[in-house]
């Protein structure tokens, strides 16, 4: 037994005595706490405890959870552009229990939004906003705004791509407020650009101003709630009872249910992993952490948290409204809805007012639900769309390059067919948007995973932050640089994939997938492959000496045995020593064959008649230098300047010199970027455990 039974003993003198009782008496004499506790617990509940009264208590519970987990997170969080993501990474992936605390904070925040909606609905349906409770209803609405404000500000704090881009949109919308908008935006952002001070301000709002204000309003909300008493739902079905313990018991059960749902959401992926026999990675449970925020890197998967998705979707409703649309969608309509809610207690006085209020609340919630559904439907449409049905429209768009006149001609200027086509094209565009979104999500997941992998390296994160790691990572940057600078001619596709033939056919230069590996070299020396699109088929070299040598001389079994060709393949792979190529591992191959291959490469009757290789005396300039073929330095050389005498001084087909510029000019790629491309092509990047 402890002093928890204090309040009772206070009203029943003489039941117990002893040191504890004396201590309790000492404090009660000086504070009067027993009366206070009694006041708090012995509230009359007209008509007895009911489940419909639990929502307010679950919200208080959720808020307390947020305060506790928030304070612990605060003690490990560092709000600056170079440390925010990094400290959250450390919390999520390295600190004991970090994933659980962060997961609780993240999921409980979402639960709070749901509970707010339920609490509001219950209050409106029960008419609990009517006299004398108007002020308390208004306080509740203010509390709701504060909670949503904390949700909005908290989204940015990890400083990942998702939070960064969503916040850019949210703060840009703040700029639309009449008169003060631009200044307001600059104040919130902490300057003209997003950075340290955006984080410090959002953090101060999230952990200081907003919860501080919330606690103040919550205390008044609860005091007023007690002053007016519970707004009992009529008719009363049972005799009155006390708040303690009947209603408290129901409240506690509801809190446990909320907690169970929250924990379920956090632990569901762990259960799934267990069922599928995969290892459970604690860092992947609970709240997501995207790749670090990068203002120069587009983030096409940018979406607000699900409970703000209806506002996001609402902006799309005003297509074609110009600036008025955005102003209406982001400021006027949401403001009007909120204003309407503030008026509810006044409207409720009028005869039909209460019904109107209930209908209005339902309409808003149903509308928000519908908008959320549409937003999700638009984003995920490609998952269930029948892509085949649009094949004709797609082909027509491709053939005509989406030129309206050519399309009209192709359809014989038939208006019915044109209308049909336009409807199909419209649907097709929606599917493509969804596809783009889904692939952006996939890319975002990849980037996030990679950022975590790099942050976990033994060298740790440099002082410049995790973004530095990503910007210097061949695996992250290689594909982007390749897509931007190389992919208009070169393919980079695993030839065994189903989609490979189409991609190769569309390319106009060699497939660089696995360049430098034995497999790649083998294809180069294959008479069928070398004239195909994966090598020289679509280039000016298709009629060159190399192709004719491979197709004519090397097919003559008397000059080139299969064994000799394979030896050359090994020798080439050994030159390149591509990281991901096992056959390039010199120690693993037969030293004699390697020697044989090297001799064949340098042989002035064979490869060496055109190529400089090994110790031979063939001058460089006619054909690419095979000394160091495909190694890092060689690749950097050819990407920087293919016209260099080591490569194609006379016979360069179309390749630009990416690393050199005319005097005083800017090269298309910096030395670092060329290095990243070379490393990526060679599969040379950090691999986690």
């Amino acid at each position, binding site marked *: 037994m402890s002093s928890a039974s204090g309040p009772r003993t206070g009203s029943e003198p003489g039941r117990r005595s002893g040191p504890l009782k004396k201590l309790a008496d000492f404090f009660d004499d000086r504070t009067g706490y027993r009366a206070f506790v009694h006041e708090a617990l012995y509230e009359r509940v007209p008509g007895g405890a009911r489940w419909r009264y639990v929502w307010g208590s679950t919200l208080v519970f959720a808020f307390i959870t947020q305060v506790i987990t928030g304070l612990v997170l605060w003690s490990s969080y560092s709000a600056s552009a170079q440390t925010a993501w990094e400290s959250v990474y450390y919390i999520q992936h390295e600190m004991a229990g970090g994933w659980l605390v962060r997961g609780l904070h993240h999921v409980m925040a979402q639960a709070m939004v749901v509970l707010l909606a339920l609490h509001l609905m219950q209050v409106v349906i029960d008419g609990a906003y009517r006299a004398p409770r108007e002020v308390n209803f208004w306080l509740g609405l203010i509390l709701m705004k504060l909670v949503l404000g904390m949700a909005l500000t908290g989204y940015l704090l990890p400083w990942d791509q998702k939070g960064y881009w969503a916040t850019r*949109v949210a703060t*840009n919308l703040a*700029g639309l407020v009449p008169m003060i908008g631009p200044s307001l935006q600059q104040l919130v952002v902490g300057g003209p650009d997003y950075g340290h001070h955006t984080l410090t301000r959002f953090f101060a709002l999230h952990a200081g101003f907003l919860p501080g204000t919330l606690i103040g309003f919550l205390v008044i909300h609860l005091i007023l709630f007690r002053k007016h008493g519970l707004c009992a739902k009529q008719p009363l079905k049972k005799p009155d009872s006390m708040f303690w313990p009947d209603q408290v018991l129901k409240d506690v059960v509801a809190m446990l249910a909320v907690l169970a749902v929250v924990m379920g959401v956090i632990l569901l992926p762990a259960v799934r992993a267990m069922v599928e026999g995969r290892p459970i990675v604690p860092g992947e449970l609970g709240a997501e952490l995207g790749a670090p925020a990068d203002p120069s890197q*587009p983030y096409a998967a*940018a979406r607000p948290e699900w409970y703000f998705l209806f506002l996001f979707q609402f*902006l799309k409703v005003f297509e074609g409204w110009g600036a008025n649309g955005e102003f209406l969608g982001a400021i006027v309509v949401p403001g009007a809805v909120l204003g309407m809610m503030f008026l509810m207690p006044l409207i409720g006085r009028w005869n039909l007012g209460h019904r109107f209020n209930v209908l209005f609340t339902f309409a808003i919630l149903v509308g928000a639900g519908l908008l959320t559904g549409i937003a999700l439907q638009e984003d995920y449409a490609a998952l269930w769309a029948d892509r085949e049905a649009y094949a004709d429209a797609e082909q027509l768009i491709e053939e005509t390059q989406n030129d309206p006149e050519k399309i009209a001609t192709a359809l014989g200027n038939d208006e019915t067919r044109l209308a049909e086509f336009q409807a199909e094209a419209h649907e097709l565009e929606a599917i493509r948007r969804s596809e*783009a979104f889904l692939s952006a999500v996939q890319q975002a997941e990849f980037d996030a995973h990679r950022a975590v992998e790099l942050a976990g390296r033994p060298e740790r994160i440099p002082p410049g932050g995790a973004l530095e790691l990503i910007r210097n990572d061949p695996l992250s940057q290689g594909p982007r640089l390749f897509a931007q600078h190389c992919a208009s001619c070169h393919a980079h596709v695993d030839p065994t994939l189903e989609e490979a033939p189409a991609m190769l056919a569309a390319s106009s230069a060699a497939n660089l997938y696995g360049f430098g590996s034995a497999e790649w070299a083998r294809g180069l020396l294959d008479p069928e492959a070398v004239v195909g699109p994966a090598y020289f088929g679509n280039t000016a070299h298709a009629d060159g000496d190399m192709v004719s040598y491979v197709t004519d001389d090397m097919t003559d079994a008397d000059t080139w045995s299969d064994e000799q060709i394979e030896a050359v393949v090994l020798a080439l792979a050994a030159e390149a020593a591509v990281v991901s190529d096992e056959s390039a591992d010199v120690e693993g191959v037969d030293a004699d064959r390697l020697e044989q291959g090297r001799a064949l490469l340098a042989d002035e009757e064979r490869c060496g008649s055109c190529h400089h290789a090994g110790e031979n005396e063939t001058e460089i300039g006619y054909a690419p230098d095979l000394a160091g073929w495909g190694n890092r330095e060689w690749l950097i050389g050819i990407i920087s300047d293919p016209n260099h005498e080591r490569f194609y001084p006379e016979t360069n087909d179309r390749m630009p010199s990416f690393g050199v510029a005319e005097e005083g000019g*800017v090269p298309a790629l910096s030395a670092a970027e060329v290095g990243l491309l070379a490393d990526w092509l060679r599969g040379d990047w950090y691999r986690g455990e």
Partner: protein
Amino acid sequence: MSENAPIPPAGDRRSFLAKIVAMVGGGLATLTPVAAGVWMSLDPLRRKSAAATFLPIADVSSVPDDGMPRQFPVIADRTDAWTGFAAEPIGAVYLRREAGSDTVQAFTATCPHAGCFIELDQRDRCFRCPCHNSSFTLDGGIVSPSPSPRAMDTLECEVRDGRVSVKWENFYSGIEAKEARP
């Protein structure tokens, strides 16, 4: 003093003065930290972005002359409050040349609707914003109906000795007029 001694009624002149002094004094006492706090909180309004300078982007030869835009990073020194970054990517532009023309058009990649990053759809030959479905033609024009209030924002562009420089600016989003941020 006895607890039961009568308290003189408030309302005489002396007590009126006490009330005024108490209110003014208390007000001043609280307002001082509030005013200091507001002063400091308004500091961001004094900050100007380093924008609106011409930055070298690329050689003209690296801009395709077939009307298809190409994305280039904008590299510049940047300060973020107390941190200085040397030569960092601070954003992106699309450069474009009409077939056979030497005139380069430059667009910022920031969407004029709500500030997302506009992407180029090579297949459909148009620009698309991934956030609220705004589309733009290859020359930056608006594709109606669009949530965007205006066409893509062009940037001033200079070509000198085969090099393209762009006047890097940020614009207010969501309004019809293209207005540069200070």
